[in-house]
């Protein structure tokens, strides 16, 4: 499914070429897809934050195959 090296690669891709485009250029370009930034805090802390912010909390249960 995914590996630590895969996650690292995604982080590196996300950091590459970080020069800020000029405003007009930015308007022409579609938003750059970003890798998910997982929140590693305990689930109960995240539940409380979801309650405060009105956001939804998504928990991805995965396993190596």
């Amino acid at each position, binding site marked *: 499914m995914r590996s630590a090296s895969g996650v690292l690669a995604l982080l590196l891709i996300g950091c590459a070429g970080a020069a800020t485009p000029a405003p007009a250029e930015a308007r022409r370009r579609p938003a750059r897809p*970003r890798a998910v930034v997982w929140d590693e805090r305990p689930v109960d802390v995240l*539940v409380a934050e979801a309650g405060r912010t009105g956001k*939804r*909390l*998504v*928990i*991805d*249960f*995965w396993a190596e195959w």
Partner: protein
Amino acid sequence: MFETPAGAESLAGQIATHVNFDAEAARALVERFGIINLPTVVVLGGDGQEIDRVQGYEEKDAWLEEMSAALRANNPIPTLEERARTHPDDAAAQLELGWRLLVRGDVARGEVLLERAILLDADDRAGHASEALFVLGRFYQRVKLDFRTGRNIWRELATRYPRSERALTALSWWAKAEAELGHVDLGAEILRRAAQAEGATPDHVVLWASYARKRGVDRQPALAAVDAVLPAATGETAEELRELREALSAPAASAPAH
């Protein structure tokens, strides 16, 4: 899926975390959220209550659509409660509410609804009875780690509905439960008998041979069965059989994984 741009974008504006199912520290969360399938994405509202979940993954677009719907959904339980109440003889309605309550921790009500789905679709014509057993089996074996109850459920599914599309998986889980209970040879016998039964397919041999390889039992007879069915096998099954043939032909590992 979340490593892809589309998957990552689907979570924009939400709080997101991930849990490795197999990590020891994850057990409490697996039980708390009743994770019966992998992968599973659970969506919670601000009150900490589950709103919806996306289980399994087969195809990218369908998964993204399901994910998007789950993020926009309202808690379906009130609607499902009403449907189950007004359609008491509808097996699908009992099944849908039953599995959702079960994984949310309302085991007593969930079980009753699932048992009713089995009763209402006793011949499994609509596949609801086998699905209800499948849910119960995974819940007890994967979530509760109750291998004795799991074993009984898988045995019922495999023997009562042998033509169900879930029968093959049930055999595999049944054998695995026996192995977990310390009955490794019995697990092998279950799969051997299924592979040698009338109507058995090469996939039954794949199950038996995979178990033989993993558990270090029945290696020679399973290898002979692989050789017997390999010439007629096609596609992924043939590929798996070739791989198993190679593994079973090699000298056995000194410490089989019991």
